[in-house]
């Protein structure tokens, strides 16, 4: 029996082991068509383009080239395709597209770009397929295409009352040349886009049937874990694997680039095997500790290169009588997606097959091809569901490990990370220090802003920095939106031996905090209300103002909070969207307690309001975990943080009530996966400032008595 056939058979036999994951209605459940007749599957199904397949029973399968990691894009992209295709939503299924650069171009998901960049091409793809179906119907009915309309997966000839189902047209439609520039639907005719739509993947996830990277099972598969250097940059000097090899279920132990891999029958044997390994390491930086990170940032911060200069901030600051200076520091952060990393790889017959939860099928292909010295066409990636990504899965280190292990093992191997491997694995949100100075005019309004940023660069690992500036480290500051005439921004890239990577909202995750919290400090110095200051300085920024006013109104800004509570506001633009948040906070047992968050977003055209609301809640919780708890610690060159006991996150009992306001807009869609994360830390810190009179100059927040 062919292996692929075997996989299908085992899928049916056990239910929970499907290697591909059907979303939405199963093929078995056919829905009646518009005329009330059950469709009669006949003929053949066909692809109308890279994204759209239709089967004779009218099932529409969308192949989504971006990665579904929880943010809801599989559903949102399907909505856009279905809207233009006029597909009946009840017959829509979605799945991740296979890796195929010719068909899909770059398959990488990050920067909240799926809908922003897919809005136009996905509408066009849906419209092209619709035109092809109409042309096939025109031919069959012997009428002009202009006499035909489409609705609910049917082509309708109103004049004669005749209707043809997409399922009976698809085989003929697939032979018709797609139009160059199909006409797109007018927004007024949208019936899906803009309407709260349940996710296509909910049912599979609620039944425990969705297949994630860690759930992949192949016949004859082994499971590996890799012991990586305890200090970044260290290499194994001496390995004693006798005891590890004696562990029941351990099959082999191999040295790979990143460490020593234990290959075993299953996770547990691999774990016992790695615990029995005795490895002597050499190299690495044993001097690094948490205080040392702060020291390096402080040494670098004054030595940056210029990023932005308006007016003369130094002169204004020098002459000002009312001014303020503060420094803001954030630590390294792990992404800690709920599902630890894994990749299953089978290297065989000059081919490399990979099943993994990756944000980038494209880089996965390139990485595997480079390691194995084969052409990229010989690498096939199946993207599974993923238990969170937050940027971590756009790095391909875990795939590289798995490819090396599978090459050595010659059978399919799933290489898995434990939670400890994940938290200690580097690829962190960089630590950062901002020194900010601000000056007020005689009336108490800000007139100068100088911000010096030191933060280890993410982009430097990928290529030389343009003019010495990592654009991600300064985002939110280089485009400071406030109407302050004198602005000076510099950036320094301190050398630290810690790997860094894109973390949900990237530089905005720390810069929104420093900017928005310092602005409240300045407002306080000038005796101004934080909303008043922003209104004045954002007078020519309507989208910032729009969300700010919406959040302030929802929070009843200006009315007194309950006794012992105070409110704080923050606004930030990132990834093409504008988000303002107000937080109501008190202090309980010496720690901040967040009672309520009001969040307003203007993300342009709204595709799925239900998803946007969910992403606002999600981004707030993620940012709140970082603000209240998140910090990676170092001691003697080792990472001291390891799991959720010392890397705590927000839980149910810590949850504020969250109200989300979607601000109407006809602008093109902006991102929604990341923009809710940046404003929450400053909103909370501004509330604490209002409550206690004390600013917060370091995250995570530690209140001093």
């Amino acid at each position, binding site marked *: 029996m062919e292996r692929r056939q075997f996989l299908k058979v085992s899928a049916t036999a056990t239910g929970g082991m499907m290697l591909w994951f059907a979303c939405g209605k199963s093929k078995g459940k056919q829905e009646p068509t518009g005329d009330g007749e059950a469709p009669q599957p006949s003929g053949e199904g066909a692809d109308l383009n890279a994204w759209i397949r239709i089967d004779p029973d009218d099932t529409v399968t969308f192949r989504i080239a971006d990665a579904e*990691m929880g943010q809801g894009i599989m559903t949102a992209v399907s909505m856009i395709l279905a809207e233009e295709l006029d597909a009946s939503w009840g017959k829509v299924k979605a799945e991740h597209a296979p890796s195929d650069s010719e068909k899909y171009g770059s398959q990488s998901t990050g920067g909240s770009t799926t809908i922003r960049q897919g809005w136009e091409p996905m509408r066009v793809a849906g419209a092209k397929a619709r035109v092809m179906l109409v042309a096939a119907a025109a031919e069959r009915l012997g009428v002009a295409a202009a006499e035909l309309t489409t609705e609910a997966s049917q082509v309708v000839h109103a004049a004669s009352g005749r209707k043809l189902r997409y399922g009976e047209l698809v085989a003929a439609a697939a032979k018709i040349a797609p139009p160059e520039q199909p006409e797109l639907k007018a927004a007024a005719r949208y019936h899906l886009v803009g309407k709260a739509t349940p996710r296509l993947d909910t049912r599979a996830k609620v039944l425990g049937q969705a297949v994630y990277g860690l759930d992949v099972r192949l016949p004859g598969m082994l499971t590996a874990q890799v012991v990586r250097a305890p200090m970044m940059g260290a290499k194994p000097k001496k390995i004693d694997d006798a005891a590890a090899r004696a562990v029941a279920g351990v099959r082999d132990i191999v040295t790979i680039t990143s460490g020593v891999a234990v290959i075993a029958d299953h996770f547990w044997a691999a774990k016992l095997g790695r615990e029995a390994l005795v490895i002597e390491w050499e190299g690495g930086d044993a001097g690094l500790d948490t205080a040392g990170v702060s020291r390096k940032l402080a040494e670098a911060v004054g030595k940056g290169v210029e990023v932005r200069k308006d007016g003369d901030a130094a002169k204004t600051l020098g002459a000002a009588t009312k001014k303020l200076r503060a420094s803001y520091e954030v630590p390294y952060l792990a992404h800690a997606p709920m599902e630890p990393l894994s990749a299953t790889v089978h290297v065989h017959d000059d081919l490399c097959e990979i099943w993994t939860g990756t944000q980038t099928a494209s880089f996965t292909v390139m990485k595997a091809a480079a390691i194995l010295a084969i052409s990229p066409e010989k690498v096939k990636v199946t993207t599974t569901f993923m238990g969170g*990504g937050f940027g971590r899965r756009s790095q391909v280190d875990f795939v590289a490990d798995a490819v090396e292990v599978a090459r050595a093992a010659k059978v399919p191997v799933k290489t898995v990370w434990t939670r400890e491997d994940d938290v200690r694995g580097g690829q962190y949100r960089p630590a950062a220090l901002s020194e900010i100075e601000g000056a007020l005019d005689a009336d108490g309004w800000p007139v100068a802003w100088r911000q010096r940023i030191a933060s280890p660069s993410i982009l430097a690992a990928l290529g030389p920095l343009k003019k010495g500036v990592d654009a991600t480290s300064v985002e939110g500051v280089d485009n400071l939106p406030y109407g302050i005439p004198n602005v000076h921004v510099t950036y320094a890239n301190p050398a630290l031996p810690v790997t860094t990577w894109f973390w949900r909202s990237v530089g905005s995750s720390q810069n929104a905090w420093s900017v928005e919290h310092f602005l409240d400090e300045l407002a306080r110095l000038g005796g101004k209300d934080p909303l008043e200051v922003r209104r004045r300085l954002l007078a020519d920024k309507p989208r910032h103002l729009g969300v700010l006013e919406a959040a302030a109104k929802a929070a009843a800004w200006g009315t007194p909070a309950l006794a012992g509570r105070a409110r704080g506001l923050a606004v930030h633009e990132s990834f093409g969207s504008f988000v303002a948040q107000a937080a109501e906070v008190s202090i309980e047992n010496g720690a901040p307690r967040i009672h309520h968050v009001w969040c307003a977003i203007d993300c342009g055209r709204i595709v799925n309001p239900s998803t946007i609301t969910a992403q606002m809640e999600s981004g707030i919780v993620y940012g709140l975990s970082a603000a209240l708890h998140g910090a990676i610690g170092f001691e003697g060159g080792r990472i001291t943080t390891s799991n959720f006991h010392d890397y705590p996150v927000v839980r149910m009992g810590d949850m504020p009530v969250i109200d989300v306001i979607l601000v109407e807009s006809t602008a093109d869609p902006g991102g929604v996966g990341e923009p809710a994360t940046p404003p929450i830390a400053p909103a909370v810190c501004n509330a604490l400032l209002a409550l206690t009179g004390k600013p917060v100059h370091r995250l995570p927040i530690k209140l001093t008595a």
Partner: protein
Amino acid sequence: MGYRINVNGEVREVEATPDMPRLWVLRDLLGLTGTKYGCGMAQCRACTVHIAGEPAFACQTAIAAVGDRPVTTIEGLSTDGGKTLHAVQEAWIALDVPQCGWCQPGQIMSAVALLGKTPAPTDEQIDEGMNGNICRCGTYSRIKLAIHRAAKGGV
């Protein structure tokens, strides 16, 4: 060693070392991957199953310690192969709770256990009963609504 275990109403035989946590028996030996791994140290409850009706950390329960007490996993919560869903699952679907979904089987198993003991929980009782389950995607608000909905019989 050979063990006979009772999972979702079926008796299954597996070969395992006595210390092997139930989580890996389910996932790696029986192919029941609906029960998830999140921390392996009783921190996240992604691995929640019911053992003799009581919620338990599958990552902390060695196979030898379970004996033949019946275990229910997310796959066994609905009946007839997923046709009839548990009221909690129905509520989860009605409110579109999951994002990435990785924590959700554990959340659902915890919620079912909570409602078993406290059929009409208050917000505070939900906070307390669900505080062990981490969700990195932040679906807590919808989880709370879904538990209230399931408690009220689906409205």
